[in-house]
């Protein structure tokens, strides 16, 4: 599905953001990308759909080399990749329905887009998605009248309207409160399973990453220092990614619905696990 080969990015200022990054995604799964700020997570995600132009290396989406496409072909390729942003990036003055339908902009003609006369299948799909993300009835609400969590759901809906082969998710929960964060992550997991679409998700919250993803890639200084099952993220791994720290509370694979009271027990259980594992 997606293959990244030896990706490098050096910014004009001289900062090296990505250094020989390579990995492959060949099944529908959620891959969490973790790492400290400045590790290159944002750059990596944006190099995949070429919002940022890589300095060298290749990005292959089902044998199509994204890095070598011309502008028209690039636009076609972008249709196949749905992107979800930290700041939601909805067009504030437009309604929820218009924002959802903007996911189809790569597929409709200019005139349809201007007159907002999208094909009936698209409108139907939009209403279905509206219900699926839990915003039934909100189609005519202006985007800037929604809460953060609601806006992110619209953002997810917009990405899914593209019927993408790949989801690129840039810190979807960084601007949300803990409860909403978990709701959004749960929604993403369910959607990935339903549609069989792989998702690359930048997360800075390691616990969230472990709870909701199958595979974790750890970035540090633009390089991959870990790529494996989320259960394999031990304290040593976290030290390698983030540096020296007391990781005992972070390393856990908890059930997302566990109440706070059980946290202490879990902690003890986990610490015992790590010591033997």
């Amino acid at each position, binding site marked *: 599905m997606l293959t990244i080969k030896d990706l490098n990015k050096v910014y004009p200022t001289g900062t090296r953001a990505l250094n020989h990054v390579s990995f492959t995604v060949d099944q529908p799964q959620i891959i969490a990308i973790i790492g400290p700020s400045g590790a290159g997570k944002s750059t990596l995600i944006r190099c995949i759909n070429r919002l940022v132009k890589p300095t060298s290396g290749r990005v292959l989406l089902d044998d199509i080399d994204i890095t070598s496409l011309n502008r028209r072909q690039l636009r076609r390729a972008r249709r196949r990749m749905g992107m979800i942003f930290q700041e939601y990036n909805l067009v504030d003055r437009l309604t929820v329905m218009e924002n959802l339908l*903007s996911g189809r902009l*790569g597929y409709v003609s200019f005139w349809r887009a201007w007159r907002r006369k999208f094909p009936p299948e698209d409108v139907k799909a939009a209403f279905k998605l509206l219900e699926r993300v839990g915003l039934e009835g909100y189609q005519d609400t202006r985007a800037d009248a929604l809460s953060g969590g609601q806006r992110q759901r619209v953002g997810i809906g917009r990405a899914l309207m593209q019927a993408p082969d790949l989801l690129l998710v840039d810190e979807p929960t960084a601007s949300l409160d803990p409860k909403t964060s978990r709701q959004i992550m749960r929604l993403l997991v369910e959607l990935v399973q339903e549609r069989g679409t792989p998702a690359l998700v930048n997360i800075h919250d390691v616990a969230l990453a472990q709870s909701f993803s199958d595979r974790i890639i750890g970035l540090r200084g633009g390089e991959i220092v870990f790529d494996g099952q989320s259960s394999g993220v031990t304290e040593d791994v976290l030290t390698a990614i983030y540096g020296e720290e007391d990781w005992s509370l972070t390393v856990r694979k908890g059930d997302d619905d566990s109440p706070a009271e059980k946290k202490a027990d879990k902690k003890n259980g986990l610490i015992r696990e790590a010591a033997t594992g």
Partner: protein
Amino acid sequence: MSAPQSHTASAPPRWNRLRMIETPALRYGLLILGVAYIVWSVGVLDINWHRISTGIPRAGNMFSRMVPPDFSRWSLLVKGVLESVQMALAASFFGMLLAIPLGLCGAGNLVPRPVYLVARIIIILSRTFHEIIIAIFFVKIFGFGPLAGVLTLIVASTSFISKMIAEDIENMTPGQLEAIRATGASFPKLLIYCISPNTLPRFLGVSIYRLDANIRHSTVVGIVGAGGIGQVLAATFSRYDYDFSLAILIAIVSLVFLGEFFSSWVRGYLR
């Protein structure tokens, strides 16, 4: 934090009021400079009380000739006003149309750098020169009459509105542009789906404001022969028809007043 403990027989603690310019040297320096400038420039311009004092009775004379205002030639007045209104409307409409491409090109985050620079230079040049200078050029090329006036006002409107558009686009949150680009949308679709919803309200507001400003300016380009009520007014002054002048001035002030009223009503309605 302890209170000052001086028990010696000293003066009570002083405080200084906060001033706009902190350092006394700078403050007084500027003041002295200002006064010196006034004295020097008045001397250079050869302004003396004699001229002012002979002016006042002349002003009185003029006022007495102005009042009461003469509305007898009202058909000429109405024709002039109508022409000014037409000029203002035409200039606003075509100014809006032309400002869209110019404004888009003047946005640094949207177009390649050379295009941006050219657009910005055009905007700066057209705003530097007073519309009367531009009017004179157009009168030279197209002759006397409202055509020169309309063209002048179009130039003024376009540069004003396009500057606003360019600034609006540059102030947009960049994330929205990124998101729409990420769906595979082409540049025209980006324009109508992302840029237009964000800039349209202010674009309309600025254009309406410009309509009102154009009414004011249309009264003035006539002085150099570019049509409108200004041309009628200039003629009355040169013929010493001061009572008609007053009538025209009253008409102009009322027109501008109405224009402002209309423009703020429409802008309130748009919101």
